[in-house]
């Protein structure tokens, strides 16, 4: 019998995982035993030698082509150690599988005379039972009598039936294996950490009782509970978890070696089931998965499960080093009848707060199961009480009472405080507060004379100018709500809004309504509006296309003003009215200014569309408060001659990189930059965030914290609160919630249920309480199972210094099956290689089909990106469309593959689908090296698993 024999399939899996991990992982198994202080090391040393002689695996090393070969045998080390911290050192000291041996025994002697024997082995050669057998032999001289050696067991293993393997692969492919971990808010760097949960005895007894009654093992119950938490956090309906199974049979009770295997368990999460039924189904999936232990994981999946649940017997397994999987949950029973859950997690993907929260949520599920398995799963709380309270509190802006005042009252106060101050400037014309007050009162009386009654709606259709501001104020003073009719609207839109809002009187000119000129003055009495009366109705189109009127009362606008008191707005400020008054950003521009005593500069239509003209106006008028959509801002050259002290972004997601040139020209002490997220249905703004240079470099800007008086919470599709990190729909409550949609009671009931507005936007909270806006819910598109985040693509484009603005369009083909990404970039210099750069930076599914350079991004009337007016994209660069003739490198690689696998291999055939597994991957690696590809590494085979892709990677290193 030669001294060489191949790695067992499960050993190959472990070996490959060990070799391809990003961090040095510690696949160690250790046990520590107190020994008498006067222990003579000669005895255990002798036993150790006998142990290694009887079990050659313990004195072996792994060769380049995946075989065991003899190495130096382990010897007992004796160390004098100052204290027990040495134990950790000994356990953590890495093994070198290529040199061996993979077993280490160290006798530690402490100054106080005590001593410990530390036994550490690499998992390639041991499991819990093996470690126990070794310890018994070394310490007590109990020599195991194995029925069969490990080597013999390995050699007798039958390869699994290919049809079974294919069936398992299909089952996993249909499930959600690649669970997103973005909820984890990991921090790059750092191998791992641990968190603990103790389940008290009464709860655990309840779990055992409920489980036994259902025919479910406690381990299955815990795995099912973990699956439920992950399903809720990732939105995956069929999360795949992992678990470790032992392949050791009773006959091999005394055999020393590694008998473990990791199997994948797909769990179907249906929250309409009772908790008991759900866990029963999870248990059945576990049992089915246990029986696939003979199938190497690499043969059925592309990547390891994200979360593995491992049962423990509680015997010492000193925890050390990096975690093997992003989440490994060890569960063991305690002597007191409770249970201990140890979660080892990779901090680069899951941060400590998320890990601890995971355990608390697990506890909630287990407690519900112990209490009443008949509970519907959806009724099991999504968080522990304390976490729930924290989330509720964190989503509330500072408390504010609902104001009991109106726009007209607040305006009257400004008039009284400074009647001769200029209120509105438009070109050469200006109106003081007193003049604006007088004109608007006159017009209000005229409106009442024309038949306007309090509580009705009046249209305003005027060009930008002082008359426009007069008219808006006049309608309010008449006790009515203004309905903007932008003169730029096409006729059908004007007609629609007029009819839909039942307009009978309009300031300006509109067919089918009484026209009142802005210069009109009347004599009727005016009744004052109440705080709860509608102030304006602004129409939004939304994804369904049919516009709907959002009705906003006076008190909401008053609340918005009060919420912005942190900006220090006042009479010395100069604002621009840049946006169409049919876009609610204008509500902030007009009333934010006039209700704080500032001067409002009306920006003419064409000036707003000419960035240089606009810049000149900003400088000339010494504007201090500038409100912009990011798309419009991207076109503005900051210069250095502006007086802007407050720059507010709204209306679109902000790519913070855009702000860097501005921050260079106007540092923080000169100008404050604030990103605000808002929706028409919640009165212009709901959150605010100070944008810093650090933000600009980090990625898409957070939208920050709720405004005082506003509440924003992220909820799942069932309306339940989700914990920080988890993405869901943003719901807005508080003082900004509008009265509803005009004449659309069903839609209003649906979107404004419970006094909150469902935004249709996707978002997540960070642990520090800041909200991230992730785009529209219905823009959620997946390509090959991966969610598309256009923000990430834009961020990557903007990283190129030649790109000053970027947009990404997701297009579906007519049959909705194919999805295509097209990117557009505004470049300061020709950049034909933009797409090639993205290929290097982004994962494959995020690389757009085309990147088209444009001179500027087309904007809608509201200053947002106008997708419809983007040019058609350029031609798609065919990647692997045309069969490229095979070159020398590809031919060599393919020949090696074919020789190893014994089947014909095409250039795009996937290694694992051809029947490859970890052991073959190790062999392939060795064969490629022997053939002259000196730099090939095992992980290359896993990451580039076709001949063509592997050849591309190796081309540079060919010898």
């Amino acid at each position, binding site marked *: 019998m030669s001294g060489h024999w191949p790695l067992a399939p499960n050993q190959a899996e472990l070996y490959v995982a060990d070799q391809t991990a990003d961090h040095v992982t510690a696949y160690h198994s250790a046990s520590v035993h107190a020994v008498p202080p006067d222990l003579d090391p000669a005895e255990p040393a002798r036993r150790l030698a006998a142990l290694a002689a009887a079990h050659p695996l313990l004195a072996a090393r792994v060769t380049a082509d995946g075989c065991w070969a003899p190495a130096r045998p382990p010897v007992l080390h004796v160390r004098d150690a100052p204290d027990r911290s040495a134990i950790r050192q000994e356990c953590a000291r890495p093994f070198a599988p290529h040199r061996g041996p993979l077993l280490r025994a160290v006798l530690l002697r402490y100054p106080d005379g005590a001593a410990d024997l530390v036994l550490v082995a690499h998992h390639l050669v041991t499991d819990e039972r093996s470690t126990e057998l070794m310890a018994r032999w070394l310490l007590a001289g109990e020599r195991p009598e194995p029925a069969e050696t490990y080597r013999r067991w390995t050699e007798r293993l039958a390869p699994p039936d290919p049809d079974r393997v294919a069936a398992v692969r299909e089952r996993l492919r249909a499930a959600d294996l690649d669970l997103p971990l973005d909820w984890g808010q990991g921090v790059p760097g750092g191998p791992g950490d641990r968190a603990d949960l103790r389940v008290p005895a009464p709860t655990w007894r309840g779990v055992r009782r409920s489980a*036994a009654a259902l025919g479910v093992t406690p381990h299955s119950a815990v795995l099912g509970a973990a699956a439920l938490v992950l399903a809720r956090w990732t939105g995956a309906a069929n999360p795949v978890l992992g678990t470790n199974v032992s392949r050791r049979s*009773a*006959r091999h009770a005394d055999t020393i070696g590694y008998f473990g295997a990791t199997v994948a368990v797909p769990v179907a999460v249906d929250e309409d089931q009772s908790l008991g039924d759900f866990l029963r189904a999870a248990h059945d999936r576990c049992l089915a998965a246990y029986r696939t232990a003979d199938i190497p994981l690499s043969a059925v999946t592309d990547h390891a499960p994200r979360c593995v649940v491992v049962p423990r017997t509680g015997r010492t397994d000193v925890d050390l080093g990096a975690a093997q999987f992003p989440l490994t949950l060890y569960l063991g029973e305690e002597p007191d009848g409770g249970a201990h859950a140890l979660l080892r997690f990779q901090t680069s993907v899951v941060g400590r707060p998320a890990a601890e929260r995971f355990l608390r949520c697990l506890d909630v599920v287990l407690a519900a199961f112990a209490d009443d398995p008949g509970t519907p799963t959806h009724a099991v709380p999504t968080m522990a009480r304390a976490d729930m309270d924290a989330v509720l509190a964190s989503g509330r802006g500072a408390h504010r009472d609902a104001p009991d005042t109106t726009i007209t009252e607040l305006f009257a106060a400004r008039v009284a405080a400074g009647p001769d101050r200029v209120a509105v400037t438009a070109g050469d014309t200006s109106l003081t507060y007193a003049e604006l007050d007088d004109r608007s009162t006159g017009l209000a009386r005229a409106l009442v004379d024309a038949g306007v009654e309090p509580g009705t709606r009046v249209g305003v259709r005027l060009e930008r100018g002082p008359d426009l501001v007069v008219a808006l104020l006049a309608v309010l003073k008449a006790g009515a709500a203004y309905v903007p009719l932008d003169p730029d609207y096409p006729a059908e839109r004007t007609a629609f809004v007029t009819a839909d809002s039942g307009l009978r009187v309009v300031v300006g000119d509109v067919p089918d309504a009484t026209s009142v000129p802005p210069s009109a003055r009347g004599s009727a009495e005016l009744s004052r509006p109440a705080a709860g009366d509608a102030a304006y109705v602004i129409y939004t189109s939304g994804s369904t296309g049919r516009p709907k009127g959002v009705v906003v009362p006076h008190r909401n606008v008053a609340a918005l003003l009060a919420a912005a008191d942190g900006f220090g707005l006042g009479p010395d400020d100069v604002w621009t009215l840049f946006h169409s008054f049919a876009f609610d950003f204008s509500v902030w521009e007009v009333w934010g200014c006039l209700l704080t005593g500032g001067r409002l500069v009306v920006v003419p239509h064409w000036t707003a569309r000419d960035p240089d003209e606009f810049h000149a106006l900003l400088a000339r008028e010494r504007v201090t408060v500038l409100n912009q959509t990011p798309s419009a801002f991207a076109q503005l050259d900051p210069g250095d001659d502006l007086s802007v002290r407050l720059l507010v972004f709204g209306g679109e997601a902000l790519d913070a990189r855009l702000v860097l040139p501005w921050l260079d020209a106007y540092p923080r002490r000169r100008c404050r930059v604030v990103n605000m997220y808002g929706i028409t249905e919640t009165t212009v703004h709901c959150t605010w965030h100070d944008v810093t240079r650090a933000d600009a470099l980090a990625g898409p800007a957070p939208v920050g914290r709720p405004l005082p008086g506003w509440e924003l919470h992220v909820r799942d599709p069932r309306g339940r609160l989700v914990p920080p990190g988890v993405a869901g729909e943003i719901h807005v409550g508080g003082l900004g919630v509008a009265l509803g949609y005009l004449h659309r009671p069903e839609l209003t009931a649906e979107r404004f249920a419970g006094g909150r507005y469902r935004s249709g936007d996707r978002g997540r909270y960070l642990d520090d309480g800041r909200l991230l806006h992730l785009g529209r819910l219905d823009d959620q598109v997946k390509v090959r199972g991966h969610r598309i985040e256009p923000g990430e693509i834009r961020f990557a484009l903007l990283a190129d210094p030649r790109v000053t603005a970027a947009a990404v369009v997701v297009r579906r083909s007519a049959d909705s099956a194919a999805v295509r990404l097209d990117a557009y970039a505004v470049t300061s210099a020709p950049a034909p290689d933009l797409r090639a750069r993205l290929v290097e930076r982004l994962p494959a599914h995020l690389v757009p089909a085309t990147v088209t350079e444009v001179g500027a991004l087309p904007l809608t009337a509201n200053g947002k990106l106008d997708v419809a007016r983007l040019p058609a994209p350029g031609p798609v660069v065919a990647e692997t469309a045309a069969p490229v003739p095979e070159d020398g490198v590809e031919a060599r690689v393919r020949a090696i593959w074919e020789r190893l696998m014994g089947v014909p291999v095409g250039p795009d055939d996937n290694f694992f689908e051809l029947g490859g597994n970890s052991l073959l991957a190790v062999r392939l690696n060795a064969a490629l090296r022997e053939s002259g590809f000196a730099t090939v590494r095992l992980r290359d085979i896993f990451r580039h698993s076709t001949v063509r892709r592997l050849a591309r990677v190796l081309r540079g290193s060919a010898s």
Partner: protein
Amino acid sequence: MALEQDDQLRALWREVLGPDADPAAGFINSGGDSFKAVLLATRVFETTGRDLDYLDVLEADGLDALRALVARTAPRG
């Protein structure tokens, strides 16, 4: 099955699952888990020389099922 072996299996069932374990109740229903299944399979092997798959023991829905497993598994040295 020999009466002696039958008694042995009953005794092992109780040894692993507890003296009050109802032989008519399933292994998991009686509080059994993977570890106990391994334990029972090991004890069965030690006593009868038959190497049962511990997963089958885990899924056994009662002592009768265990007997059936033993009956159809050939002993090995």
